[in-house]
């Protein structure tokens, strides 16, 4: 839509054939990254953080999350499914985890691991990081990729507060692939597939915040796989796949709200929901939050059970996961042998790969690198804002009058696009057609 450079991969796309050009998505976006032009929603790539709020509100499902082709599996001899615990939470209590595993195997996977296997190792690394880097307090967890991107674009002063460590998904895939390679399997034969509950995780895999490429070879949307598994279960497939792992209750609830924070000492916070996250980041930035504990933040309400690709209700899924956690803690089948028990050498090797070198700030707020020029633009913007009606109607294609004023000084819109300012009837028709498409004006 405009000349801003594309910073990274986005999983959220607009299907222009389906988009009807309404104002739902532009209003829901927490970074004001969407505009309507020519009757279609257009996403500013530099502003989008892949949170998926637009996906939730689109009334015609024109916004979709691009996943990898499932046939990609066929390219690999060893096909590993990395399943987040929330996937198990989508099925009702009557369905056993071993049945779900069995279906995944029949769908073509050779190995099934849950993402949270890496949690135990990660907690050690996080505690170590926090004690070694006291100057970066307060510590913000790196778990939710949409939070990282939100900080990069809207709270650039806080990038150093993010714990510079990768997440359970990375640690698990690193350990799995390293183990297979150490066992003599060629790396090109190993295909690791992540089943994702959200768009942000896809974006994080496709263009990670750090330099090294992710060891994950493909990402499959959770709703897609859920349908496939449920269909098999409904055709009374009752086979089970023996589960040989040592997940604990702590691991299973890691992606729920409080799942991380409850493992750390000191004043810890667990924030979920995009608006809450923004409010809290604002407070941290103002210096109002002093703590050496962990600040856990996830952009979805109820954390990953609220992920946009979860087919089931978030509270239902959460309840199942909590029950499963209690069950696993009461029946620690393999407690003496952790699935990811690592030798000292192996741990050190993985620990090195877990570090994130740098999280770059990429402010979307800055108007110009030159202070004098930026100052003029701010002044100009203030003037334009005073002319606009503060109705935030969205008729100009921008979500608010403030966003419109910014678009104008960035030469991405013109004041004539405001229907309160422009009273020229002929121009009005042309402008509405330009913004909303030529089928929107109603004649009585």
């Amino acid at each position, binding site marked *: 839509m405009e000349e801003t450079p594309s910073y990274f991969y986005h999983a959220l796309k607009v299907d222009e054939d389906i988009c009807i050009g309404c104002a739902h998505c532009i209003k829901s976006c927490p970074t004001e990254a969407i505009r309507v032009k020519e009757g279609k929603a257009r996403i500013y790539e530099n502003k989008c953080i892949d949170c998926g709020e637009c996906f939730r509100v689109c009334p015609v499902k024109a916004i979709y999350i691009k996943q990898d082709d499932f046939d990609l599996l066929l390219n690999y001899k060893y096909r590993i499914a990395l399943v987040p615990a929330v996937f198990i939470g989508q099925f009702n209590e009557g369905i056993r985890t071993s049945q779900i595993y069995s279906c995944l195997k029949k769908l073509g996977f050779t190995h099934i691991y849950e993402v949270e296997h890496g949690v135990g190792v990660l907690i050690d690394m996080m505690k170590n990081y926090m004690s070694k880097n006291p100057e970066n307090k307060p510590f913000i967890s790196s778990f939710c990729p949409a939070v990282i991107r939100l900080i990069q674009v809207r709270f650039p002063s806080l990038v150093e507060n993010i714990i510079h460590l990768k997440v359970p998904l990375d640690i698990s895939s690193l350990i799995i692939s390293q183990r297979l390679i150490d066992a003599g399997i060629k790396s090109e034969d190993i295909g690791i597939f992540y089943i994702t509950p959200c768009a942000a995780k896809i974006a994080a895999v496709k263009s990670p915040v750090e330099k090294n490429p992710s060891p994950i070879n493909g990402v499959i949307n959770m709703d897609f796989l859920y349908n496939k598994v449920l269909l098999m279960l409904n055709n009374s497939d009752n086979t089970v796949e023996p589960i040989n792992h040592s997940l604990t209750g702590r691991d299973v609830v890691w992606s729920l709200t409080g799942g991380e924070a409850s493992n750390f000492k000191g004043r810890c916070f667990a924030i979920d929901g995009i608006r809450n996250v923004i409010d809290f980041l604002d407070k941290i930035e103002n210096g109002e939050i002093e703590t050496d504990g962990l600040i856990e933040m996830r952009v979805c309400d109820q954390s990953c059970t609220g992920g946009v690709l979860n087919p089931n209700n978030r509270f239902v899924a959460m309840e199942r996961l909590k029950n499963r956690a209690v069950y696993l803690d009461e029946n620690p089948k393999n407690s003496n042998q952790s699935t990811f028990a690592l030798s000292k050498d192996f741990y050190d090797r993985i620990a090195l790969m877990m570090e994130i070198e740098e999280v770059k700030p990429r402010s979307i707020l*800055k108007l110009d690198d030159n*202070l004098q020029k930026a100052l003029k633009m701010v002044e100009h913007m203030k003037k334009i804002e005073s002319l606009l009606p503060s109705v935030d109607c969205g008729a100009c294609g921008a979500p608010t009058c403030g966003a419109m004023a910014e678009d104008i000084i960035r030469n991405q819109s013109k004041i004539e696009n405001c229907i309160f300012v422009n009273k020229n009837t002929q121009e009005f028709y042309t402008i509405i057609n330009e913004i909303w498409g030529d089928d929107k004006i109603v004649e009585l």
Partner: protein
Amino acid sequence: MIYSFDIESGNFTGAGHASSSVKKILKQLNVDNSIIKRVVVALFEAEINVVAHADHGNIKIILDNQEIRMIVKDKGPGIPDIGMAMKEGYSTASQKVREMGFGAGMGLPNIKRNTDEFNIESIVGEGTCLEMAVYLN
């Protein structure tokens, strides 16, 4: 550029409005993050001081390409001994204010630490005027 904000006495929930607005503008100007932090901390403390101690107040922000100047004027009891008020840990905040987590006596010294220019004048029974500036380069 000049901005003006009114501050309501006793309304702690409303405090922070000026510092948040100023923060947004400084981000738009691409001012260095460490400078933004100092401005926001100083301004927030100043806002809280007015909310906690005065009857009414106003903040005037004057911004150019060299500095941000913040003038915080209030009508209120004034400060009888500025020297004392500048000591860390000294506070005349009421119990009610302390219960809300404010009034630890860090306000004025904290403001001074975070600003490049700092001047305070006060007349007992009339009010206080705090002028501070942070250089942008």
